[in-house]
């Protein structure tokens, strides 16, 4: 007797689908857990800043501007005498909300379209795919600048721009993952037993693309933070008096010669946030195992 199918296919572990193990592996990854903790701390800081900051972040002591750290102002004061620590906390809120909204927009548009294109294939798929190719071919920041330029500088518009920027990522990922899942035997099995398309999408396709999506959200959030701070640095993002890391870096940079200090706290916040978001993404990716669709 012979069996042409590779027997070891059954023996090969399919790590990517073991929810319990994914969790365990993630928790065993010290870097990933630390990153998650830092992200949570950032979220807490952002939430707290809505109710409490050491000093009113908008209160200005005009004559005590550009001071170094002191007991009254732990991180010193900025160009118009505001408490940098308090502004930094408030800016955390700005960063995280705008990041969440940008990523949310990208997901809200990219994922359904990706599902549609991946499941339907054909002309629609080709068209959407091409559009995303074109969007991906535009240099990200320049494209964001152009969108903001078209819409007018504001944090909302910056978020829209970043959302548009991130959309193709989510679209592509969803499309590829959907394609792959769609051709899986278990989807065929579901169809064979008369399950409706909507139910297949909801019960089989979505849960199975959830982990690559989560990973991509983590990386997308990092991209959003970088882009938002970049746009704010250029003056195209958050507008006064909203505190934003990018504009705080810009303020500090403009005062480099007078006070070389005030640039660093927001810069460090950006770097740390981006760092932990990408470490989180790395951790999730490692925990989930080698992913399909993540690589081209």
């Amino acid at each position: 007797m012979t069996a042409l199918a590779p027997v070891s296919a059954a023996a090969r572990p399919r790590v990517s689908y073991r929810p319990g193990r994914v969790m365990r592996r993630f928790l065993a990854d010290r870097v990933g857990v630390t990153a998650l903790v830092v992200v949570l701390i950032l979220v807490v800081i952002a939430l707290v800043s809505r109710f409490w900051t050491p000093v009113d972040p908008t209160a200005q002591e005009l004559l005590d501007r550009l001071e170094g750290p002191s007991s009254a102002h732990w991180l010193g004061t900025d160009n118009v005498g505001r408490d940098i620590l308090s502004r930094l906390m408030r800016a955390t809120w700005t960063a995280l909300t705008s990041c969440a909204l940008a990523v949310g927009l990208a997901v809200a548009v990219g994922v359904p379209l990706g599902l549609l294109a991946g499941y339907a294939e054909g002309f629609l798929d080709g068209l959407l795919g091409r559009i995303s190719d074109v969007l991906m071919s535009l240099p990200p920041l320049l494209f964001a600048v152009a969108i903001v330029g078209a819409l007018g500088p504001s944090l909302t518009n910056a978020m829209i721009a970043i959302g548009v920027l991130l959309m193709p990522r989510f679209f592509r990922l969803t499309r590829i993952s959907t394609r792959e899942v769609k051709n899986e035997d278990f989807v065929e099995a579901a169809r064979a037993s008369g399950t409706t398309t909507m139910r297949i999408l909801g019960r089989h396709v979505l849960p199975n693309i959830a982990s690559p999506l989560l990973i991509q959200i983590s990386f997308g959030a990092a991209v959003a933070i970088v882009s938002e701070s970049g746009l704010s640095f250029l003056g195209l993002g958050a507008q006064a008096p909203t505190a934003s890391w990018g504009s705080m870096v810009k303020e500090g940079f403009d005062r480099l010669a007078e006070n070389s200090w005030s640039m660093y706290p927001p810069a460090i916040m950006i770097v740390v946030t981006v760092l932990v978001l990408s470490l989180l993404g790395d951790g999730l990716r490692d925990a989930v195992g080698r992913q399909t669709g993540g690589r081209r």
Partner: protein
Amino acid sequence: MLRFVATRLLTVVPLLLLLTLVVFGLVQIAPGDPAAIIAGPEASPEAVEQIRADLGLDRPVWEQYLSYIGNAVQGDLGTSYTTNEPVTEVIGRALPRTVTIAVFAMLLAVAISLPLGVLAALRRNRLTDRLVTGAAVVALAVPPFVLAALLVNYLALGGLQLFPPTGYEPLSEGFDEWFRFAVLPAIAIATISLAELTRQARGSLIDAMEEDYVRTARAKGLGRWWIVGKHAAKNAAVPYVTVLGLNVGRVVGAAVIVEAIFNIQGFGQLGVDAVLSRDLPTMQGVVLVSGVIVLLVNLAVDISYGYFNPRVRAG
């Protein structure tokens, strides 16, 4: 192979068309009246009307689009609203600055990422690997503008004053001169790509080393370096080159901020200025040209797949 290249070339055409559509659409959503901008703040309504007619802005949108494409194909991207020069000329002036710096940055990134990535992959999970990957992760998190600010503060100003903090000299002024001006912006632009490419080089080499054919090569008694240099490298090159292509866009994007900091009147700066001053033709041109560059780079990447991976040649 020839046929493969030809088909690849053809696939770019619809992308280019879509690109022009995106670029043109971008301008359509922009509020404000271009004619009023050209006319200047103190112009009369008639003057504005006259300009509108001269520019053909009173024609239907699709007509404007068709004539835009028609002209673009002939290398005419319109006339800058602010300088009244042909956009191609404005871009032609700014582009070489960015391109030389970007190429420098990419060379830097490749030259450093390859050895580092290979080293890390071969010393996987050992100290060298951890140092390299750790540094790459951190570098990946430093936005170019932060890095640029640090470089300016410490290397150009401060006590060291090793390099000029602003400006650009073309290569025609001599390599030394160009290098002095280009090195800091190039580092600022290159770092993220460098980090990503290092990770990619490491990752794809590790992946390749786990493939069955590497086991075959080992079973043939081939030496480790031979296997890495021949069998793994050519296969690992595909994802690496892909990421390299994707980073071209990122580098041009990073130029937007870095050029502002270094006051280089390059492509990015041109784009930002055009956006800020609503110089729509220039803005269109910048987005279009950058898109075309990235598309062409990706085309080159695609074609390179044909070399690295004979399977795709079959189509």
